[in-house]
Each structure stands twice: as C-alpha cells, then as structure tokens.
C-alpha cells in the first residue's frame, strides 16, 4: 500500500525495500566471492566460447545469480538462432 502511495506522490520507495534489494545483491557477491564487476567479464567470456560453436544472439543472453535457500546458482539463458537461417543467409 505504501509503495502505491509512493508512486502516486513520486516519493522514494520505502527504505526497508531498498535495504532488502541492496542486501540481496551484496549477499550474492559475499557468498560467491565474485566481485560485482566480474559478472560482465564472465558473461562476455561465456558468449565468446559458445559463439565459437553455435550461432547465438549476444544481446539476448541473460546470465544471473539466483538463490535457493542458502545455495547460489549461476543461471544462463542463451537463446539459439534457428539453424535454417544460417543456411539461407
């Protein structure tokens, strides 16, 4: 309810919500010892390796850290380009 009011009045979201979102990210990096800037480098390298074998759209690649209980998981969503397009084009 308060977030609806906040939007209505163009107010900042409440601080508890901000704390939670910030902590989510901080904890992911603390738990995995992966510096925030490392994710981009990791993503670029994964794209480079996969592109060598299959045709993918680098802009559609999503690589995210997710949490399940106290377990961290690196989830990569890599859409493939249809093979026929390669033959015709």
């Amino acid at each position: 309810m308060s977030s609806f009011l906040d939007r209505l009045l163009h107010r900042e979201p409440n601080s508890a919500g901000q704390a939670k979102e910030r902590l989510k990210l901080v904890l992911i990096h603390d738990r995995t010892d992966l510096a925030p800037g490392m994710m981009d480098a990791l993503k670029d390298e994964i794209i480079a390796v996969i592109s060598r074998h299959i045709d993918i759209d680098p802009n559609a690649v999503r690589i995210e850290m997710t949490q399940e209980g106290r377990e961290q998981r690196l989830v990569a969503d890599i859409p493939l380009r249809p093979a026929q397009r390669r033959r015709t084009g």
Partner: protein
Amino acid sequence: MTGKVITFTSGKGGVGKTTATANVGAALASAGNKVVCIDADIGLRNLDVILGLENRIVYDLVDIIEGRCRLRQAMIRDKRVPELYLIPAAQTRDKSAVSPSDMIRLCDELRPEFDWILIDSPAGIERGFRNAVAPADIVVVVTNPEVSAVRDADRIIGLVESEEKGPARLVINRIKPDMVKRGEMLSVDDVLELLAIELLGMVPDDETIITGANRGTPVVLNGKNKAGQAFINIARRLNGEEVPFMAMEEEGGIFGRMARWFRRPQ
C-alpha cells in the same frame, strides 16, 4: 546429565549477543535448568556486568585454562535464580590465551554437571569466534534488522556451516514494530528470506533492556516486559517446547501477527 553447548555469535558487534546470552541463561535457569554462562570475549568482558556479578570475580576463564584455579573456583553463582553460574572472561589478556581445543576440553568437563552451557562469543570472525564455536552443539546467530548486521550474520552463518556446526539458528533482536509497519525497517520475513535459516526468536526493541543492564538485572528476572517474554520463549524453544511465534501478539499487535505469517524461511 549431558549438557548442551549453545554459542551466541553475530559477526558484528553491538547487536545483543551478551544480552541474549544473559537473558536466555537466566530464563533457562528460572525454568529449573542448571546453567553456566561462559564469557568468551577475552579482553572485552561484559557478561559479568550484564548479569550484575562483576564485583564477585576472583578467577576467570584464562585462570582455569592455565591451571591457576580449579573449575569450581572460577564459577560465580547468581543468587537470584536456583542454578545459574558465570565463568567470566579475563580482562587483561587477549583471545590468543585460549585455543579452540581448550574450550572443547572445558565444556566436556562441564557437560556432566549442567543442562546448558551458554557461550557468549566475541564479535569478529577470528580466533575468538573460533574459540566460542568449537565446542558448540547449537550455534545461535544474533542479528538486528539493519543492513550491516544482516550482512555480517550471513557471513557468520556461512562460516558456521564450513566449521560443520550448522545449520545455525537465528535470533532477530531490536525490532521496532512501528518502523517495520511504516516500511522503514526490514521485517522478520525480509531477514529470513535473505538469510534462509531457521528462526529461533525475535526480540522487540525495548527500553527495559537498557534499564536492566544499568541495574545488572537481566530483563527476564524483572517481571513483565516484551523483550523478556521474547527471551523466555527462546529458552522454551531450546528446551524443545513448541512455542508459537505469535505468542507476542498480545503485547506486540501487528508485530505478533506478522510473526505468525513469516515464521519459517520457506
């Protein structure tokens, strides 16, 4: 009798480890258990003043470990409850005066005589923390609903797991229900979602904690107050009783209702 060892730890300082140790200890003793509280914060002892026993210290933890006194001689009995004892920390030494194996040996000596051995861990993740956690059967992580305390709690929970002392159990201390209601403080369910461990108790922020500390009387010994009731509930849960988290509702209003909804991490 084979006593269980519970260590209260947190990573961050000032979240209420000593208050929790003193109050859970006093609550367990009031319920008829034989309890000893060990202050493992060597060099920065405080459990003695919180329990109001500072004037009766003769020997301390390091004296026991270095053989200058017998175990019995260093135990101070709290006369307000039937069976509550304190082993104070040394004030003029540092954490390196004690090793994890010293703590394990000491607790093994205490186990046959006590129901509960409570250890108040120092802040930090170094030697003092490892000393305090080494003999633990149960590790209780104390935190506050604040970003720095939650972050440090997460780190400690990971360390407890890697020391094979997990899963740790969580006490969220100093909750301000009105701030939570306004969305300006992390709620119990927010913290549980972030840390993903089992909740042992939640304690509202309460002025009587400070007045109790001023007097050297743990709030559980001092009649009806919200924080005291919360610590009594923690003690009952440790003793295996199913105490619903909504028990605070009568006093806590919205706070208690929220608690009922969000009492498990998943």
